[in-house]
């Protein structure tokens, strides 16, 4: 009798130890994730510290990128503005298309078509970045060059005042415009999926009452669905922006990788992620150049962290659960 009792007790205490160990394992793994984020921020900052020290705040505003020994000068301005402009342009291309796809998948498409089309769009998100890069370089860039820059672009360039945006003496086709197009195609699935998910959360009663009043589908979306999901839709767009900012390989293939400020959307320029991927493998450990690349990485991390955090916050405030 007493043997069974002590047996139970020891088994229960074994369970308690197991519980404690497992709970701490889980918690430790959770803390590891926090540590990862902290570690990334700190290593990038420390890596970039020599460059920040050398150039000070001027690093942010200098357009120089001169690796010649003895005259080394590095600045982030070209890469930072290239990153921001290519991403914003990509968002401008992607948002209307993503909205169209989400609207089609939630309201317009026949029931049997929704799943396969939805999956096909999601598969677009699964295609690796480098594949977009290759396809962009060999298919999209020639198309942009021949069918857009040399025809429509040249026409637009003759318009006074805004013409300069389209006027470029870069005829290679690799340009900020091509990069924005490729990024747009890559982020469409993410924005469309978020929009579709939040559109589906609109209570059917709301939509039905609007339909009952005689509203058309567009009116229902514009006056019921969009106001109801506004915050989450912006969150989805910010998510797309966050992805666009850090896009690396695809951009590297099509942006031209020139350390020049782009005055026109058909100019070649570069982005932070692209500079790092292109130049880091050939930079010497401990060199000022490598430090400058770390500093660029730190700037990119800060920008995308803010954008992704805002996106998360917006999506969470409505889509809780």
């Amino acid at each position, binding site marked *: 009798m007493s043997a069974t009792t002590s047996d139970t007790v020891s088994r229960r205490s074994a369970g308690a130890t197991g519980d404690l160990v497992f*709970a701490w394992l889980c918690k430790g*793994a*959770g803390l590891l994730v*926090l540590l990862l984020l902290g570690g990334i921020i700190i290593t990038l900052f420390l890596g970039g510290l020599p460059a920040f020290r050398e150039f000070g705040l001027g690093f942010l505003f200098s357009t120089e990128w001169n690796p010649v020994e003895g005259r080394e000068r590095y600045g982030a301005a070209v890469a930072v503005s290239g990153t921001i402009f290519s991403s914003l342009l990509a968002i401008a291309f992607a948002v209307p298309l993503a909205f*169209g796809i989400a609207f089609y998948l939630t309201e317009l498409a026949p029931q049997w078509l929704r799943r396969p089309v939805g999956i096909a*769009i999601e598969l677009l998100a699964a295609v690796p970045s480098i594949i977009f890069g*290759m396809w962009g370089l060999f298919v999209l860039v020639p198309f942009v060059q021949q069918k857009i820059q040399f025809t429509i672009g040249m026409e637009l360039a003759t318009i006074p005042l805004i013409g300069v945006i389209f006027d470029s003496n870069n005829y290679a086709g690799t340009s900020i415009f091509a990069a924005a197009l490729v990024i747009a195609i890559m982020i469409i699935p993410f924005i469309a999926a978020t929009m579709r998910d939040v559109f589906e959360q609109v209570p059917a009663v709301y939509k039905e009452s609007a339909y009952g009043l005689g509203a*058309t589908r567009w009116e229902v979306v514009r006056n019921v669905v969009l106001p109801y999901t506004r915050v989450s839709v912006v969150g989805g767009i910010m998510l797309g922006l966050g992805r666009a900012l850090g896009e690396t390989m695809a951009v590297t293939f099509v942006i031209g990788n020139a350390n020049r400020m782009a005055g026109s959307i058909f100019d070649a320029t570069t982005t932070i992620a692209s500079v790092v991927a292109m130049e*880091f493998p050939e930079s010497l450990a401990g060199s000022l150049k490598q430090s400058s690349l770390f500093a660029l990485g730190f700037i990119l991390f800060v920008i995308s962290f803010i954008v*992704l955090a805002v996106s998360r916050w917006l999506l969470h405030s409505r889509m809780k659960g």
Partner: protein
Amino acid sequence: MSTTTMTFTRTPAEEATARAMSRRRRVMDQIIRLFCIGATLVGLFFLASILFTLLVKGLPRLDLITFTREFQPTTYGDDTAPLGGLLHAILGTLVQSGMGVLIGVPIGILVGTYLSEYAKGTALGNAVRFVSDVLLSAPSVLVGLFVYQLVVLPTGGFSAIAGSIALAILVIPVVVRTTEDMLQLLPNTLREAVIGLGAPKWKMITLVAYRAALSGIVTGVLLAFARIAGETAPLLLTSFGNNVVSWNLGNAMGSLPIAIYQQANSGFPDLIAVAWTGALIVTLGVLAINITARLFLARRK
């Protein structure tokens, strides 16, 4: 729909205005409808165009040589030179992605478990969830920079280990997401029943909850593998690439994305053809895994 049933009378002018407005609304609706169909077709067109391009340019070199030989220099100008293959890259991708999954999945599952079973509603839990979600979309090239500082510099060189660690970091948030989502779908009555039988919580989680959520967890693992198999930028800074088959985890190791990157930019038509074949292999592999993962989840539902 139209204004034929009226409780009051309208002048003919008002009638005409009402009809015009209703026509305008319907035309607007049609325009938007066509735009949305067009947008969807454009999206599908891009996927089709990518797959079509890959097939047209990748199929010519999808032969035995590609799967059995290592990299060879271009045969341009010398037809007798041996053709190169992608064996080193395929093996390198399998090894590094496999190790990335092996390291990242257990951590990801534990974090997902922590979020769903231990830290619901706590400040620490919310912080972990938030950070994991940010890491899910954070630029992968920065993870490469991080691992370069953390592993490559202290160990003195590029290595497959460093590459695997970088990939593991990318695996974790994917697995966290799916694990937490799947565990949350389990009914609480299941947990209560197991606890009520006297089982400790950790046994409830490992023996019952994991089993019940298995299909979702497997889906997460498959998706994570598919994601890292095509990653290029982090590997460029960690395992760097190698032109021959290497089994030494302490040395630089090739991978498909990097072989594609280098050969696509080589400028030689025969190397670019091999790059396209590599691209075809990666894409078909990644898409096949994605579809499998979906089927796995759908069958369960």
